[in-house]
């Protein structure tokens, strides 16, 4: 087999992230994803261009959007010859897409690709309960009046109660927040630590905005020009007044609306390519996507729903013979402040390293000044499937502009999974 090719990150484009039911109340996944891809098309002059493959997904999705990636690619003005694949691994969706596409570029199957994700809570699919749904299907298949009537046998009005989409874990029945409360208890993460991390995320993100870091990463959409969750003026005092959001009764609750990500609408995309493809078009190479890893843990057995990134990162570093000391920037997706803090604590914990990660020496401490230096999801918000692409785009630009060498990305997902990636500076 021929030698693997390098996977260049050309750049990224995303629409501003908006808290649910605000700026994008009238939009949907297709228009949002189309706009994010349109941002790449504008920025890198891709109108009518045949891209090897677009891979994208949404966690909350209407059945009509079964070909979301393909439809959005056409809306964005890419060549009709550009295939689009829907993928989905909860909050890891667009990072996983980038890894899959990176592999295809590396082996020479394609020369260019777009990894993307979108999510909206404001336009989430609301359906009837199972019982009524089956009646409706039986009704549509019924031929005779008798059969049609039979479809409604035993009907009661309660069946018409619409069911909103749920982000509960099907296996445990707990929400993500409730799971993260358990992680905070298990790893002894205090409310104060969580609030401090959230504050820093907002401050870092606000500074990045003021410095104009996002000016060429964020494209206006539907009259929204910037993320509306970033709060430059928040404070520990304000955060301290918030009540627990998930554990309202036990008195132990530490997760609040301030140290958890809000429900968010948004879409993000990253353009990947072989070096030759980028060079031939005079496009930049900001960084290389060099490694990836997806992992899962026994969350149903009690390992902590959002702890799988510890494994993904550990495995990835093992494969590359790197240690934390070799990493200049850490992009650890902040689903909850407690999730980040528990992860960091686990990497320092000798028992956890030995038992769960199979390491005799703990991965160890990370310099806090290397973590989420431009803020993360607590500040920007977290449209589930879009977050990976947001982070990857931000990371590539950070490396290109900062002179740092190597960045590590870690994203936790529902279902006890985690996706990690390594990004290295170009030249």
């Amino acid at each position, binding site marked *: 087999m021929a030698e693997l090719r390098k996977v260049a990150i050309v750049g990224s484009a995303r629409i501003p992230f908006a808290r649910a039911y*605000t*700026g*994008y*109340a*009238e939009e949907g996944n297709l228009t949002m994803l189309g706009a994010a891809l349109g941002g790449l098309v504008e920025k890198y002059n891709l109108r009518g261009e045949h891209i090897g493959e677009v891979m994208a997904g949404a966690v909350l999705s209407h059945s009509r959007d079964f070909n979301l990636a393909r439809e959005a690619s*056409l*809306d964005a003005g890419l060549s009709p010859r550009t295939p689009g694949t829907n993928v989905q691994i909860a909050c890891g969706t667009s990072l996983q897409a980038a890894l899959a596409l990176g592999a295809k570029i590396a082996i020479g199957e394609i020369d260019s690709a777009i990894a993307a994700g979108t999510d909206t809570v404001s336009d989430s699919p609301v359906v009837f309960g199972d019982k009524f749904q089956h009646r409706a299907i039986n009704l549509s298949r019924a031929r005779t009046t008798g059969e049609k009537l039979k479809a409604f046998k035993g009907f009661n009005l309660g069946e018409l109660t619409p069911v909103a989409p749920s982000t509960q874990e099907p296996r445990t029945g707990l929400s993500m927040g409730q799971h993260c409360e358990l992680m905070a208890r298990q790893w002894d993460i205090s409310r104060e630590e969580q609030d401090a991390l959230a504050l820093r995320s907002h401050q870092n993100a606000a500074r990045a905005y*003021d410095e*104009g870091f996002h*000016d060429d990463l964020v494209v*206006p959409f*539907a*009259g*929204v*020009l*910037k993320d*509306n969750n970033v709060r430059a003026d928040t404070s520990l005092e304000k955060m301290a007044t918030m009540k627990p959001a998930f554990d309202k009764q036990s008195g132990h609750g530490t997760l609040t609306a301030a140290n958890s990500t809000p429900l968010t609408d948004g879409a993000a995309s990253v353009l990947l390519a072989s070096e030759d493809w980028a060079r031939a078009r005079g496009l930049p190479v900001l960084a290389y996507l060099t490694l990836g890893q997806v992992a899962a843990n026994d969350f149903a057995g009690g390992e902590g729903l959002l702890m799988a990134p510890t494994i993904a990162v550990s495995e990835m570093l093992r494969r590359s013979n790197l240690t934390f000391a070799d990493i200049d920037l850490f992009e650890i997706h902040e689903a909850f402040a407690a999730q980040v803090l528990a992860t960091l604590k686990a990497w320092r914990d000798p028992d956890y390293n030995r038992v769960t990660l199979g390491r005799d020496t703990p991965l160890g401490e990370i310099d806090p000044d290397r973590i989420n230096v431009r803020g993360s999801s607590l500040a920007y918000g977290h449209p589930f499937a879009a977050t990976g692409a947001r982070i990857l785009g931000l990371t590539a630009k950070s490396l290109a502009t900062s002179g740092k060498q190597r960045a590590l990305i870690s994203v936790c997902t529902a279902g006890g999974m985690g996706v990690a990636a390594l990004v290295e500076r170009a030249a």
Partner: protein
Amino acid sequence: MAQMQTPNVQMPPSRAFTFHLDFEGLGWLTIDVPDAPVNTLSRETLAELAGIVTALEEMASSGELKGVVLLSGKDSGFIAGADITEFDEMSDPGVLRAALDRAHGLFDRIEALKVPVVAGIHGFCLGGGLELALACHYRVAVNDDRTRLGFPEVNLGIFPGFGGSGRSIRQAGPVDAMQIMLTGKLLRASPARRMGLVDKLVRVRDTLRWEARKAVLQARKSSPAPFTKRVMALGPVRGYVANKMRAEVGRKAKPEHYPAPYSLIELFEQHGDDWRAMKRGEAERFIPLMNSNTSKNLRRVFFLSEGLKKQGVRGKDKPVFRRVHVIGAGVMGGDIAAWCALRGMGVTLQDLDMERIKPALDRAKALFRKRLRSKTEIDNAVARLEADVTGKGLARADVVIEAVVENLEIKRKIFAEAELKTRPGAILATNTSSIELERIAENLTAPGRLIGLHFFNPVAQLPLVEVIRSRFNADADIARGAAFALAIGKSPVVVKSAPGFLVNRVLMPYMLGAVQRVEAGANKEQIDAAAVAFGMPMGPIELMDTVGLDVGKSVAEELGNPVAPDSQFARLIADRKLGRKTGQGFYTWSNGKAVKGEVPPHPDLAGLGRELVQPLVNATAVAVAEGVVASDDLADIGVIYGTGFAPFLGGPMQARKDGRA
């Protein structure tokens, strides 16, 4: 693309149309007028279409053609209308009559085709383009932000002349159809669908052809307006409706200035219950309108305004404007900031403290509520406008607009700082109306960066922005300023830095002249009525009250016309009776309206009005002679947009040339 069949009938050659017949028997007719950014229906294009329709008729009767789909090959849209550049050549009534008869005959033949004809519409579908679409049997349109349907003819002093008056009434019913023809208002896809001008909406352009194919195969035919709508044109109701329309139009346009809407209403009154008769009656009324001075002048104004849109920077250097930093949250600064935010810019509005910014934000919110449709749109606009006490928006701004008090030192200080803190490509602009641009610019390291962007109050209503050029500016600086004005939907006119620029300079002698007459005993109501009778949108005394007597006085002084201290004008100012904003000026103001007394009779009001505007016309001529504006054309469009000067007269310079002012 479907596999092509070779039709047995010979298609005539065409520059604007391509045709292919597919294996299902569908004929795909695409209009793409060469060397033009938009499709228009010139005589040549219509002649080509006539030849094609002959071929289609043969193919339809031979059975090889199952239906026709008419699409546009241009991104800009379907068809923007008839080719207005040809209108002047049609001044001979005989030539025009023949051209109209040919177009009517052609559209009737399309309608009479034995197979379904479906129009697939995206982007602009206006005037003659909409008339052609209405002659098709079914219409599909893209439901996006860019789709616009309408009849803008009335703005050119005419009305639809290719059968659109009758066909639009047939499809949309008399009230809606007349409303869009009388106002020239352009409709988006959804309202057009609700009105019945369009039968089906699709999400994207790709889908047009597929929905159109379905329509052909199912032989769908658009249904005419239901009886509940048509009843408004029946029997005595029609006369009543026509009178309501006359009253409505009368509020905006006088029949002696703008005959077209009145002529259309008469046509409706005659034939509104019979769309065919209405269609037949079009030409007879259309021909004199087309030959009227009003229409000639309005056509010229249209071309001049199109010319303004061609200013700015094109091609790959076309600047992108996203962030505007406005310094000074007073009436002008605040309203400029609000306007920019309304038009999609991210705006930071700077002033010394929140108390000064707050009223501007409140006014902005009121503007957004008035102009935007949904709560989300309003909230997003509110989010685009940020108060900025510390001036942090300066560093990332693409455009900086200063609108603080008229104080040279303060302005110099602001731009000295702005020059340091902004990125090099950012536009630096002042909204000053009385300080010479050169004096603000001269201390800058790069004085050529500073331009003037002179907005007019009320910003949301007046389309003109004077782009002020100092002797330091290069063409590129001015072009970028014009590009920005266009980006926020304003019409830029480049004016040399000179006292009063263009608009204030020509307005002031006219207003002061009228004030002097009133001081000498003339009746102010009569003065104002005379100006309106001449064709001004508002009389000069009412205008002075609206602008504010204090503002009028300071502009007058700057132009070397000090107000006599013993005048009524000076006394009103001394008593803080400053006009509309204080509730009392020359007039008493109640609920934003001047309380006016009876107008004393006058044998020739319009003649008096013409006398009143003499100073304005004279001043315009001097401004052109001194090179304040580059040409008569720019002076005319600038004064029309800046003062509302009678568009049907074509502006002050044209009116003087025609001996009408």
